[in-house]
């Protein structure tokens, strides 16, 4: 049944994973185009295999942790992770820090790979680049899936959301064959930051033994409060930036 909890779990896992997979895709694409597809795909496959092994080893251990403890730990980690994303998204929207640019990331990686082209270990270094990108972004995807799914026994739905994001990025990437610069990464990170922070508050509370009024619907209330605050914060920070710029121009 599509309860608010299931819908928000799938949405958070899909959007959060989508952003991470786009970032990994940019690096793998850079390796594939600049060096060759063999080290790019080998590195990506090796990282995926390692992620699967890690999930298979550590996944069953979560079942041994009492639910309240799990909810509390996951809630606190989500607060740390989500509020970090939300802070960055607010500052990016206000123009305080530059937006993440996939074209720039692609160019930077391409330059680095070209510099390594004459190295005897060029294929190995290229494979390592793809491996690291997929592993590091993949760890974030795994965390998002576990964090938004485990505490309410919705890991399957979170996994479906993440898998849909992976498939969608691969399909779009295979079609356009260039960095996915049109993806509104900051807007997505803004939404995911809001959702993860809301989940963080919700589960930290449940971990403490709270029965939230309205049960799962409380998540929507938390989203409204955090969304309202974030919109206000962007406006105020943008106004500050404009007034500083106006003073400098005088």
């Amino acid at each position: 049944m599509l309860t608010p909890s299931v819908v928000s779990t799938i949405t958070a896992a899909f959007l959060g994973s989508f952003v991470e997979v786009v970032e990994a895709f940019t690096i793998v694409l850079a390796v594939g185009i600049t060096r060759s597809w063999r080290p790019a795909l080998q590195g990506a496959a090796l990282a995926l295999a390692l992620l699967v092994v890690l999930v298979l080893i550590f996944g069953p251990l979560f079942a041994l942790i009492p639910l309240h403890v799990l909810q509390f730990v996951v809630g606190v980690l989500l607060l740390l992770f989500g509020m970090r994303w939300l802070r960055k998204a607010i500052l990016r929207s206000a123009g305080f820090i530059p937006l993440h640019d996939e074209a720039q990331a692609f160019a930077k990686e391409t330059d680095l790979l070209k510099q390594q082209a004459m190295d005897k270990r060029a294929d190995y270094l290229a494979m390592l680049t793809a491996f690291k990108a997929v592993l590091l972004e993949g760890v974030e995807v795994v965390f998002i899936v576990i964090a938004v799914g485990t505490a309410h026994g919705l890991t399957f739905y979170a996994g479906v959301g993440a898998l849909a994001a992976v498939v969608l990025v691969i399909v779009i990437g295979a079609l356009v064959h260039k960095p996915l610069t049109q993806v509104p990464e900051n807007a997505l990170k803004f939404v995911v930051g809001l959702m993860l922070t809301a989940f963080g508050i919700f589960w930290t509370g449940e971990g403490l033994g709270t029965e939230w009024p309205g049960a799962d619907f409380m998540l929507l209330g938390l989203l409204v409060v955090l969304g309202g605050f974030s919109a206000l914060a962007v406006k105020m920070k943008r106004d500050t930036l404009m007034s500083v710029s106006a003073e400098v121009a005088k």
Partner: protein
Amino acid sequence: MNLVKQIWSELVGMFVDDGALATQIAVLVAAVTGAVKLIGIPPLWAATFLIPGCVVILATSIKRARRK
């Protein structure tokens, strides 16, 4: 070894970016948990305090931020 170090620092970076933000979140959670477990405040009251607490922490962190 370098790769392991890099992965470790990325893992830590997932949760700790602005050190003050992470510390304040930890203090807030510790205070709320202490209020429930040590003082015996009802969990709902304490958990509700997380909402303004997180908003204030976020506001402080954003106010502190400098332009890059």
